[in-house]
């Protein structure tokens, strides 16, 4: 026998289930007043620097049907590529948002500032993107993915560059539908399955 590593294994994930909203977005679930203040209501405050954008989309299951119970969290840097807490970051960007798909239409809507690009470890520049984490009934471990933008220069992005099947990279790129408005659909399974990340 060899010595044991002094490390622990991560706690196993379990599905967030159909009632995740009562815990994480009680007002959306009809339980307003559960908490004095809710978390992740908006990723930006007034007077944010940069371009405000709106991203609309749906989450589809393997039958092509829209989910009506998904909850999504987003995390991003500010318009200049700085994350909250970094030197010079825009104090009006909290960067974190929680939102749900509408239970009637299945559409989500994220209003935020368009993120800038940033230089990561090793001097590699990432194209502007928003990170997403998706939970719902039937999703056993929350799914990570990213939103990129079709009107940005995505060449040289280290993550997009790793996708060998080039058409699959398209699943991470929001389509511009009007000035400041984008469409981003998420497909959990099947034709055009979204690229999910193991990071």
């Amino acid at each position, binding site marked *: 026998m060899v010595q044991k590593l002094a*490390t*622990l*294994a*991560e*706690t*196993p*994930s*379990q*599905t*967030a*289930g*159909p*009632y*995740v*909203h*009562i*815990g*994480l977005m*009680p007002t959306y*679930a*009809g339980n307003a007043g559960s*908490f*004095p203040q809710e*978390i992740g209501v908006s990723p930006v405050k007034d007077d944010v620097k940069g371009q405000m954008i709106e991203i609309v989309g749906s989450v589809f*299951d*393997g*039958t092509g*049907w829209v989910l009506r119970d998904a909850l999504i*969290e987003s*995390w991003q840097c500010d318009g200049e590529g700085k994350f*909250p807490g*970094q030197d010079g970051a825009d104090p009006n960007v*909290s*960067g*974190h948002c929680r939102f749900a798909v509408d239970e009637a239409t299945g559409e989500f809507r994220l209003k935020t500032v368009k993120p800038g690009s940033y230089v*990561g*470890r090793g001097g590699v520049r*990432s194209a502007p993107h928003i*990170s997403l984490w998706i939970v*719902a*009934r*039937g*999703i*056993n*471990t*929350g*799914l990570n993915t990213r939103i990129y933008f079709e009107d940005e220069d995505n060449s040289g992005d*280290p*993550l997009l560059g*790793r*996708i060998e099947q080039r058409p699959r990279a398209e699943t991470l790129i929001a389509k511009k539908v009007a000035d400041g408005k984008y469409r981003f659909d998420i497909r959990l*399974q*099947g034709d055009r*399955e*979204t*690229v*999910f*990340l*193991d*990071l």
Partner: protein
Amino acid sequence: MRDLGPLIPRNHSVHPAAYAEDYKTSVTRSPNLPLLSMESTPSEETGPVFGAELIGELDNNLILNWSKGLAPAVGERILVHGHVLDENCRPVPNALVEIWQANAGGRYRHVKDTYFAPLDPNFGGCGRTLTDEGGYYEFLTIRPGAYPWPNRANDWRPMHIHFSIFGHSFGQRLVTQMYFEGDPLIAHCPIAATVKERSHLDRLVAPLDLSKSRPLDYLAYKFDIVLRGRRQTMFENKLEGM
């Protein structure tokens, strides 16, 4: 902001597979293609900071927080407490721990939950807190009831509390469920069974902790949680890029 190092790659062997035949909703909601692997970047290594000013006085007391302290929820009173650590055995202070659960009869305060058990007018079913400097948290609540659910014809969920934990980075995000020691329904639950290895599932089962129970008031259960760690330990004398 200091570079705290990349996240340790996720150990998928402890987590459920996306596709679990007996948990029917997962069949059409599980990605079929492999996840795209990469080293974590600032997008995953950073995360929002939640301050104590966000948390209300009764937020971690589900017995009183829905009635705003006017009347207590009905049920077996319990304290749920635990330690949040990372894979390097380091405590995670200021982690946001959020919980939600059914009431003592096994019913959620949710428009879609139509189970026969009555709603408790004094129980909302959600709470939240931050871990302290040592990574410890606690909640006062009532033991949730077991309940049937439409999966296979006679499936019942064991008593459980849903946990959402937000550590220090977006890539550490974890949602899980706590089960109760001795509940015979755990062995029959297709959602619990998505965790394939019994030893991993056992880590979701909280033991009765009489040492923290308060005589003539509540029982206690201990539920420790491990989040992902970082590949290098932070040393004060070792600057970023090392």
